[in-house]
């Protein structure tokens, strides 16, 4: 036994085992660091941390609601835009486009997912914001009576961040939805067509519902990505910790406030509150990623039956 361990083979096995265990240790360390360093603020504020909206470093009062609100709203806007476009494009790529064209276009769309966040931020500041400043006043004339489009528009806003995010997460929805749609058995389509359905009816009424869970999974993945986005958001969201009904108002997100305030938080309570925010974000993305995986598995399981 000892000889086996001391021989090269045993050593090799031990090394790879150590590496795998190192990952466990590393992750445990990370979670522990987050948990312990956020202790002071968790103890002081409890669940009120998530409910109150005053973030006052001078007075030592920290309520995370504006950041949670901003994160949720920008992600919601992103999904509202990205889901119709994304699922639509996925349908085209899976059902209509000839295979070579579909592969080529998917390849290009997946490259969009590789574009770094700071580049989207750069385009956001110098292309999107000026464009919106031109377009929104006209838009407000038509839709400004709605509370979500009320109030002044300065450029940086929840809406701007939502739009940038939608471009960043759409490739995930397209790519994964296309995969699950392609996995739907051919017989279902052929049966529907044989019964006289149009291509669209087949797709929309038969194929998409069948792949429903997988598509939802892709949405959860996109959402998880949107929640954690830092650079593109902080460059166009306005960095204002206020809760406003209007999408045209500036806002703040969890990731953005951590990026802006972490190196300069001078009190332990401030640092602890920021780390607690990080913990909240971490928790959200875990739940979403887990749910996404289950949903995508559920669809491919169904398809292989």
């Amino acid at each position: 036994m000892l000889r086996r361990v001391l021989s090269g083979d045993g050593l090799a096995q031990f090394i790879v085992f150590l590496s795998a265990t190192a990952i466990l240790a590393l992750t445990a360390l990370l979670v522990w660091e987050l948990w312990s360093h956020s202790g002071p603020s968790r103890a002081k504020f409890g669940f009120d941390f998530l409910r109150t909206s005053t973030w006052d470093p001078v007075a030592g009062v920290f309520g995370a609601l504006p950041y949670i609100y901003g994160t949720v709203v920008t992600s919601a806007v992103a999904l509202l835009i990205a889901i119709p476009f994304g699922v639509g494009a996925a349908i085209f790529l899976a059902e209509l486009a000839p295979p070579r064209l579909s592969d080529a276009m998917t390849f290009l769309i997946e490259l969009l997912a590789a574009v770094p966040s700071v580049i989207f931020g750069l385009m956001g500041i110098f292309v999107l914001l000026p464009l919106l400043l031109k377009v929104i006043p006209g838009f407000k004339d038509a839709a400004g009576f709605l509370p979500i489009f009320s109030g002044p528009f300065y450029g940086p806003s929840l809406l701007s961040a939502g739009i940038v995010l939608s471009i960043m997460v759409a490739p995930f929805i397209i790519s994964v939805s296309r995969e699950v749609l392609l996995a739907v058995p051919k017989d279902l389509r052929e049966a529907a067509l044989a019964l006289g359905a149009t291509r669209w009816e087949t797709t929309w009424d038969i194929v998409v519902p069948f792949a429903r869970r997988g598509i939802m999974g892709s949405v959860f993945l996109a959402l998880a990505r949107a929640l954690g986005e830092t650079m593109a958001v902080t460059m166009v969201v306005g960095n204002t910790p206020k809760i406003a009904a209007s999408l045209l108002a500036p806002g703040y997100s969890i990731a953005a406030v951590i990026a802006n305030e972490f190196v300069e938080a001078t009190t332990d309570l401030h640092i602890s509150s920021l780390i607690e925010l990080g913990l909240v974000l971490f928790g959200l993305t875990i739940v979403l990623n887990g749910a996404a995986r289950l949903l995508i598995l559920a669809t491919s399981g169904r398809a292989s039956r």
Partner: protein
Amino acid sequence: MRAAAFQTAGGLSFRRRAVNVFMLGLTGVFTVLAVSILFFVLGYLFVQGGFSLNWNFFTKLPVPVGETGGGMANALVGSAKVLLLATCIGVPIGFLAGIHLAEYSGAGYASVIRFVTDLLNGVPSIVIGIFAYALIVTRIGFSTLAGGVALGVMMIPIALRSTEEFLKSVPVSLREGAMALGATKSRTILTVVVPAAIRGLISGMMLNLARVAGETAPLLFTALGNQFWSQGWRQPTATLPAMIYEYAKSPYEDWHRQAWAAGFMLLALVLLVNVTARSIIAGGLSHKTR
């Protein structure tokens, strides 16, 4: 059932045909839109940034605030150093652990490792920055080392996943053949399995690298920045993404110009690596089906 709804007396109604054409056309429009956004981003960066690339950009250090003529030479080198360190940390751990999952591990332990790795993968990059700050910066200060550790930790999950996936795709017969010839397990893996999967492993590593190359958030709290050359591993360093961020939100036109140039460089490198990596995989696949 739905089937009954499809059948009509005299064939398809005009409405159904119109809806069909319209909706299908719409999906095509959406797809073209998605693809053209990529071309728009690339094209815009090229026009704004490509023409801003000059000799100064590659060779000069930043100049004092408000002056012109500076460059990002130190940021280019700094990024290279941080990424090199990240690769040296993230790839070996992920690779070796991937071998464990693919070749040695029992199913129970494997799912634990996979689960925890997925957890690590889901950590937002800004939180990884906090982790690296608490672990390294509080001990040795802002440094290339801290930045490398932060990005290295981000590389681990993908390195593990892609290693496991590509090793598992190697046919069992190859392993059995080697073992039948008397090779030990570790020998088999090293000389037979890994080389068989090498295409996928390398391209996986390239994609991994391209992903972290663009990460800015973790570098904010770790590498900080440097207007001079960064010596060794324990000094703060300028990096390309961090410079883009700093220059983009500044008011100086010259800095904006440099931010575009840097953005173009970064995007060009990231996309080049991506395309190369994917064609390696694609080449491997067609090679296999022959």
